[in-house]
């Protein structure tokens, strides 16, 4: 994750909204060993406070699981579509 402010407010909202668009169970972690949290929980995602240069791990189970992991990884790699953002998120 290269976003300058890390997984802060706006990126967290985007990530959670995307995760919620899939029916499968989706979890994420800052380390492969966990702890894993529900990627559909905005409160838990924001509470991670994952800083810049964190490698985010995703895992999913159920319908569309592979697509979900792909879509979330792409969102992170696209810098949450916020390359233009100049001000840090609140």
């Amino acid at each position, binding site marked *: 994750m290269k976003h300058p402010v890390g997984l802060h407010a706006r990126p967290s*909202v985007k990530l959670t909204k995307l995760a919620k668009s899939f029916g499968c169970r989706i979890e994420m972690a800052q380390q492969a060993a966990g702890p894993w949290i529900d990627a559909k929980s905005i409160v838990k995602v924001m509470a991670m406070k994952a800083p810049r240069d964190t490698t985010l791990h995703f895992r999913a189970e159920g319908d569309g699981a592979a697509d979900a992991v792909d879509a979330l990884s792409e969102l992170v790699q696209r810098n949450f579509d916020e390359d233009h953002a100049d001000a840090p998120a609140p």
Partner: protein
Amino acid sequence: MTSSNVGIVIVSHSKDVARGAAEMVRQMVGPEVPLAHCGGDPGGGLGTSVESIMAAIAEAWSDKGVAVLVDLGGAETNSEMAVELLPAAQRDRVVICNAPIVEGAVMAATESSAGSSLGAVRSTAEELYAGSMVR
């Protein structure tokens, strides 16, 4: 006209706080959540009014219900009064969240944007006090 997502109402003593919180919800979450805000007394000072809270609830109305975020004392008691004055069919579908007004509004709206139930929207907003974010 009604949305398939739970509506969010922001009630602050300050018109500017209410407007600013609503702006954060709009920019961070998006247009798919019915949203209304009110704050300040009719004379331009600080305060809340039952009438404007009722108007805001009507503006953000959704058949899935409305979650209200408030700041201090009077915002809560006036919101409770506004809910009591609603028609019985609507009254049961409005909840006042025990959550910080700005953060709670963003959390609630994020939950609502996924089509979640009123109960889930309220739980997400209230999870803030139980969690680490505000500590």
